[in-house]
């Protein structure tokens, strides 16, 4: 059994697929299929492509007749609706429109007035979704799958590899990781969790036996203006970047669920976020604004290797 590792770039992130297989050819065939699947999803839900489903949806904004969507998109919308409801409205794929005010390359913080102009366009509750029709009633509204399609793609890669006979492997889509199966000797994958303030370093390592881990951090796309860090995770209620958490990692069976949990925890802030994760019962690791590491995957010290899931659960 050999281990094939294939780095590739997709969804604006460095990605890597680790796959054990009986032969090079079999690994290559599966890897090609996995990459094709990620690329398919990237194209289908890209904001930057005119022919994407996302663009078609966003072009329909203001049209009361709505736009019919395919089954896969419908299921993603169903998921978004569930996530929106269970997070008290914090998980919101319509908040992408706030990017019109927040340009993280500009180094400028938008004015309250700018944000107030955009907020009426934000809010899942403002749109109408009834399979297969999606209606964005206000011109200018936008839907963005970017907040969860990468995690969904990781789950898809796992399913596809397992269906193709793979039993051991792991996919990493820009820090969203999902395990196909442990190493052939049964040992879990050990993954490092990036230190938000030392992006090349790890603040902890986690044993991942057969599940997924997603991480959301304030370091990903951000700007520092007058010593204040403004991160890309924007609160749909205020239009303002979140504060209180530098990074949240969550382990769940599915990367999609893990990703949603990290996003919502970031939005809730240090103490509320911790409580919410605790309520979900998902293993997690958090670094707050003071640099303290907490969570069920953390141990007393600031950094300890081999934090085992078994111990956490």
């Amino acid at each position, binding site marked *: 059994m050999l281990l094939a590792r294939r780095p590739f770039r997709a969804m604006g992130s460095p990605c890597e697929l680790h796959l054990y297989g*009986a032969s090079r050819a079999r690994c290559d065939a599966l890897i090609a299929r996995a990459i094709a699947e990620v690329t398919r999803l990237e194209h289908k839900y890209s904001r930057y492509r005119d022919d994407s489903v996302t663009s078609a949806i966003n072009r329909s904004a203001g049209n009361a007749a709505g736009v019919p969507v395919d089954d896969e998109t419908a*299921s993603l919308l169903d998921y978004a609706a569930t996530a929106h409801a*269970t997070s008290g409205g914090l998980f919101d794929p319509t908040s992408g429109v706030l990017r019109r005010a927040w340009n993280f390359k500009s180094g400028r913080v938008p004015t309250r007035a700018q944000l107030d102009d955009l907020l009426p366009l934000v809010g899942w509750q403002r749109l109408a979704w009834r399979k297969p029709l999606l209606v964005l009633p206000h011109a200018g509204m936008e839907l963005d799958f970017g907040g969860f399609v990468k995690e969904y793609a990781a789950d*898809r890669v796992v*399913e596809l590899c397992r*269906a193709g*006979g793979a*039993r051991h492997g792991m996919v990493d889509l820009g820090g969203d990781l999902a395990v196909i199966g442990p190493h052939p000797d049964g040992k879990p994958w050990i993954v490092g969790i990036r230190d938000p303030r030392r992006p090349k370093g790890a603040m902890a390592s986690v044993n991942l036996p057969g599940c997924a881990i997603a991480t959301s951090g304030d370091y990903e796309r951000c700007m520092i203006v007058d010593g204040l860090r403004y991160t890309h995770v924007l609160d749909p209620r205020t239009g303002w970047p979140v504060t209180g958490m530098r990074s949240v990692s969550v382990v769940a*069976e599915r990367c999609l669920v893990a990703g949603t949990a990290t996003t919502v925890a970031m939005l809730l802030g240090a103490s509320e976020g911790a409580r919410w994760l605790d309520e979900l019962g998902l293993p997690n690791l958090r670094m707050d604004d003071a640099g303290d590491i907490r969570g069920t995957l953390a141990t007393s010290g600031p950094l300890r290797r081999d934090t085992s899931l078994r111990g956490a659960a």
Partner: protein
Amino acid sequence: MQLGRRLGRGRESAALRALQASALALSGMAQVASADSPIDRVYTSYSFSHYDEDEMEDSKGLPNADRERYSVSTHQAMLAAPLTDRIDFSLEVTHETMSGASPWYTAPDAAGSPIQILSGPTIEDERNDILLNTNYFYDNARLGVTTGYSSENDYSAINLAFDGETHFNEKNTTLSGGIGMSYDEINPTDPDLDATRPEHEKKQTYFLNVGLAQILNRRSVVQSSLSYAYGTGYLSDPYKKVFRFGGTFFPDERPGDRHAIAWLTRYRRHIEEFEATLHLSYQYYIDTWEVSSHTIEFAWYQSYGDDIQITPSIRYYTQNEADIYVSYLPQLSTGNGEYSSDYRLSTYGALGLGLKGEYTFRTGWLTDIEWKAKLSYERYLSSGDLAFSTPSIEAPGLVSFDVFSVGFSASF
């Protein structure tokens, strides 16, 4: 799954359950939406099974005759593999050895009740069978061809079938169909011993079926299919006789053709709480010999973790006799016409109780191999009393048997 249980048990919040269910729905949808493809791995299997009929009850046969009936040992091996990313194939070979006695004719005892006379433990035969199947996969459909050849001492059959399926309604609906034929030659042993035993006969069977499967939701599927079969040629049994009261025999003589229709409906439901899948099926069968039957089957596929599956099952069968079925002919009968005393054409009911165990494990010293070890046992009972409608006279040849089988498979 296991992780989810480990992580979530007792603490899993409603929010997490909602998210997981929603994410899972997405995965089920995506799986259904994935294109058709040939099998991904090489699959090979071997199984041995032994079929053993119960001895005949004393009251059902001649006082001093041997009670031993039929037994069959079957070895079966199979290999399936992908050829290209659009084509796969499979090859199956079967070797069977049969021995024992089979029902010959039924005659009245002193009280007029029919008893079964057996052929005597003379049968020693073997059957070899080879089956070759290949499939071509389109983006949204599959086309398959199967051909087989089977040979015994006194029998040979060659068959060819085409089948296919296509999906629509976002792949939630599958339409399947097949057409095939079998060409059989019968060369009974020892034709000289019996003037009415034919030397050489032929029969052909043509069949057609169409089915529809519908995914109802992530957990359940329902499937319904209608089959039609037409048999023509020599459909009788060259070794069986019909007895006329007073002591004359006529050959087993059945009509030269038979049209049959079977309607099968299956329902499958996965029950997550129990890690189990329920299979239910019902079949209605009717043919132009006026045989009609109902079959109901219930099976419970219980998983214990990823590696063990135990499947108890129960099957009930009931049939009404063919118009040509007779226990024996009355004394004044001319013997002209079509008659058979084959118990399989009588009114009877049957109960099958099965238990199957399957253990899956993996080894990885050479390549990554997934092994399955299978063990199964079935007990089958048939009698007139089990029939839905009571037979006028129960066929004395009705059989009960055990089947025990053991097998291994490997995919890599």
